[in-house]
């Protein structure tokens, strides 16, 4: 008899222990790991318009243009490459998001499950931008980067998909799972000067 799959293990469970790190002060940031289903969606040759329609009708979301993310209550789509997006939703069951996206897009797009390949973190608080500026080379100033904007860019030594969620400011950082522990190691170090509260995983 098939047994049901156990909860998948995130590399961040080991690396990201809840609690305070670094300086204690009022200007600290919070850091939290998020369990997400992730899917890379890429338009078939010449089918970008069909794909956009299919996603709008089937998933209730407009696929965003370069440099932007679109969100619905249950789904986020982040532009990562020409005609390619990363879709992100709360993890419910193994393969759930890939199945529903595949059903929605049919032959208009290639769907690749990346749920285990990428790890999702959120950094939030008044000094979050200052923390990221120790490793992020793009301009995160409110005049240049705002909620709804996204970028693929290295942070420290590690390639990231970065998007701003709100004006706290809060940033979502998506990194390769095999580098997630190294990334968190770097991020906690970067945040030490301001202090960082690691929250239990979402």
């Amino acid at each position, binding site marked *: 008899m098939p047994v049901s799959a156990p909860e998948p293990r995130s590399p961040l469970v080991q690396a990201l222990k809840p609690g305070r790190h670094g300086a204690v002060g009022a200007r600290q940031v919070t850091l939290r790991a998020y369990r997400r289903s992730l899917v890379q969606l890429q338009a078939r040759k010449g089918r970008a318009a069909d794909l956009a329609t299919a996603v709008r009708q089937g998933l209730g979301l407009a696929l965003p243009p370069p440099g932007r993310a679109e969100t619905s209550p249950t789904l986020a789509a982040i532009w990562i490459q020409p005609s390619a997006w990363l879709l992100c939703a709360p993890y419910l069951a193994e393969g759930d998001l890939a199945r529903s996206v595949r059903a929605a897009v049919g032959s208009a797009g290639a769907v690749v499950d990346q749920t285990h*390949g990428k790890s999702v973190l959120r950094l939030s608080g008044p000094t979050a931008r200052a923390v990221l500026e*120790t490793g992020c080379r793009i301009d995160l100033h409110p*005049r240049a980067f705002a909620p709804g904007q996204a970028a693929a860019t290295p942070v420290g030594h590690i390639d990231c998909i970065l998007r701003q969620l709100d004006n706290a400011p809060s940033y979502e950082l998506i990194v390769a799972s*095999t580098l997630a522990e190294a990334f968190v190691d770097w991020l906690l170090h970067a945040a030490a000067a301001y202090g960082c509260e690691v929250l239990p995983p979402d």
Partner: protein
Amino acid sequence: MSHRLASGGRLDRTRRLRFTFDGRSYVGHAGDTLASALMANGVRLVGRSFKYHRPRGILTAGPDEPSALVELRAGARREANMPMPVVELFDGLEAQSQNRWPSLAFDILSVNSLLSRFLPAGFYYKTFMWPAAFWEKVYEPLIRRSAGLGWAAKEADPDHYETRHAHCDVLVAGSGAAGLAAARIAAEAGARVILCEQDFELGGGLLLDPALEDWRAATVAALARQSEVTLLPRTTVFGYYDSNVLGAVERVADHLAEPPEHQPRQRYWTIRAREVVLATGAHERLIAFPGNDRPGVVLAGAALSYLRRFAVAPGKRAVVFTNNDEAYDTALALREAGVEIAAIADVRPAAVRADEARRAGIDVRSGSVVTGVGGGRDVERVTVARRNGADGESLAADLLCVSGGHSPAIELASQSRTPLDWSDAIAGFVPGQPVQRQRSAGAARGIFGVAEAASDGATAGRAAVAALGLGKTEAIALPPAVARAGTPSEPFWEVKASGKAFVDLQHDVTTEDIRLAHREGYAHIEHAKRYTTHAMATDQGKTGGLVGAAVLAEARGESIAAVGMPTYRPYASPVSFGVIAGHAVGKNFAPVRRTALHAWHVRHGARFMEAGMWMRPAYYPQPGEEKDAWLSVLREARAVRRAVGICDVSTLGKIDVQGKDAGVFLDRLYTNTFSTLPIGRARYGLMLREDGIVFDDGTTSRLADDHFFMTTTTANAARVLEHMEYHAQTVWPELDVQFCAVTDHWASMSAAGPKARLALAKAVQGLDLANAAFPFMAVGDAQVAGCPVRVFRISFSGELAYEVATPAGFAEPVWEAIMAAGAEHGITPYGVEALGLLRIEKGHVAGAELGGHTTARDLGLERMLKKNGDYVGRVLAGRPGLVAPERPRLVGLRPVDPKARLRAGSHLVAAVGDGQSLGWVTSAMPSVELDCWIGLGMLSGGEAWHDKRLFAAFPLYDEYVEVAVTHPHHVDHENARVRA
């Protein structure tokens, strides 16, 4: 004896700071630098010079200091070559003088000074040429002992350094009148402004005039109120790069004994600026005359700074030597502070300020120069004479203030590729037409005077705002202009009199050295610089660089404009290695990439090895194997050959390929065909570079008609993806193909060995592993422990093997389930070392054979080259040189003596001592199947040598091992096991 004035200065006299210099205790105040505090304590001899070990004092009041360099702090925080005038005093500071032995006052090597006629420019090049072996063993240690600067700490740096990436609309370098005005204009227009100031106080020259304090304080306060303005004191802009990117170092905690917890010692700023204003001020120039390096010789502007800002009288009785009006301000200020003025020697025949000074009772000698300095270790007497040498008079004085005029600080402008124009008005180079989005302002472009500089800074600020398109700018209050009659300065570089006249105090370069360089053919400024070491090292010749150029110009009989300055490059001021490295030191040097099974490997005692960024288990030592890694490796490999082993192969690159043309795309990337691959089957593929050389290999499986799953070697995963993107995007953009890396989504493990099926069958649900149902190269989906898996029947070891891939979050339960299922068969985890051993036994090629120099034919893989259809590398692989029969081909190697060891890297020769290499050993390991060492090699002639004997030569160890040449497949030549 205190030289501290009773009042004045920008000191907090209520805060007394204790510090030591060469072990002696002194007291200074908050607001002091190490230089001002030592001067206030009457310390004048602070160092010995680089080559001649001449006594040296404090020449300047800023980062242009050539002489007063110290080692700061002790132990792991010891730092060498710190210019005293930029060392902010803190309580408990420890400083040591440099380049003296045994003590500063009595330096044995000052005998070099007496030998100086034997130590001219280029001396090292000429003397220490031969014999070459002497250089490393004799000459260099000798030179390093006798000539040099400070010593670095040997311990690891306990502090950490931060990197900061910044973006701004306007970067202003320098916070004098020009910089403050420019920043204020830009800030009022709403620009994002970063203002960098190397000093710990903002204001530059404004700090020297109490009358300007109100304007300075109000402007700084107005800037501080703007939320988009970042004020960075203690921050030196050291480099101006392409695309308006500038580098700066902020000395966050250098003014403290230790950085506060969690705070960096220094911060490295990379600033991307839309517009830049360089308000870097000017460097006061020395004049070359005999004895111009003696303690007690101070630049006139620096003396004013010590008086006004630090409330220190640098002497009791002064001579002022000048070619310009500004030095008169110093003379008057000195007199006001109670310092007697013995005389002012003004090279100009007449000057308005000279007349004024005479009316005030000062002995001004127009048309006069200083021809010599007398005294023991510091200035006691100064000889002043007419410019023609007449009427020389030796005046008692303990202070000689010198001003040769001012050179705009053009380092950053020049680094930004701005050409340098000669200005006769100031006898110096000024920045020409900017190339990048940048402009200089104030003294940095030869506009002297506070009001003039502020006005120029405001203009520069408005220009920056206009370039940004920010609209109208507000008017701001500027310091009032002071109309004053003056006399132009007269270019003057050198007093030709008997004795050493230095153009570079840091490297002991004299005017004679420059002329010698010219005589010996090093007449280009770049050659003269390198031959004499002029204008190098920590101060980069800020005080004497132009003087040296002027001496060279005279020797060449040309103008200074024609001679020019050596190219300015970063770093304009020294930068510590620590801040360049930042966080990337020790274990954080590069990120570590861990497989999803990493924690399991750690718990089971694996020894790890690096493979690129990856950490991979090399082997898993068991009790009793700790002393000999071979025991572990051989045990693990034996388990695979005789029972079953399991290996984490998650690091292999994995790429998901989809699209109508996916098969066609793969056919063009690989030398063999994938469009014909049945669904549910895998195939080994070989990829060439376009030049015909083997690039990578791996297995690719077909999951659906338009869906493939590709694997690459661990080492080439990133390169292969880039190669695919290049071809898909630029060469064949018409193909309907979508692909992306899924390396991290899948964990994969290889279960290999004759018992692999027995072990796996117990763990795998939903897939019949029987040979007929799931043959070699089959692919199928299944579950293990309730987790989804994909099983590939592929083998690297040459045994019956299955690769089990699972979404990475399930790696541990899947691995554990297979371990449990295989326990009764003795399943053994094996690492990369055993994996390497097994593939050498099997004759499979890996990194050592795929090193970017081998063709498919070299590796015995010519059957992989399809006859029809285009693929990358097809045409050039057929070039005569790449198909020549004499090319080395892959062979197997075994020592004739079963106890002999084979060494990778050995050359294959026909006889002991033979110098003709026929090939080389690429990989070698002890075999578990054959009970001897085995190897793979590349051998000219290839299979013609099978069953013949050669020698594996390793001359470095005088090793010659007789080897038998074999087929590369040391085990299971028929490939029966993988199909069992």
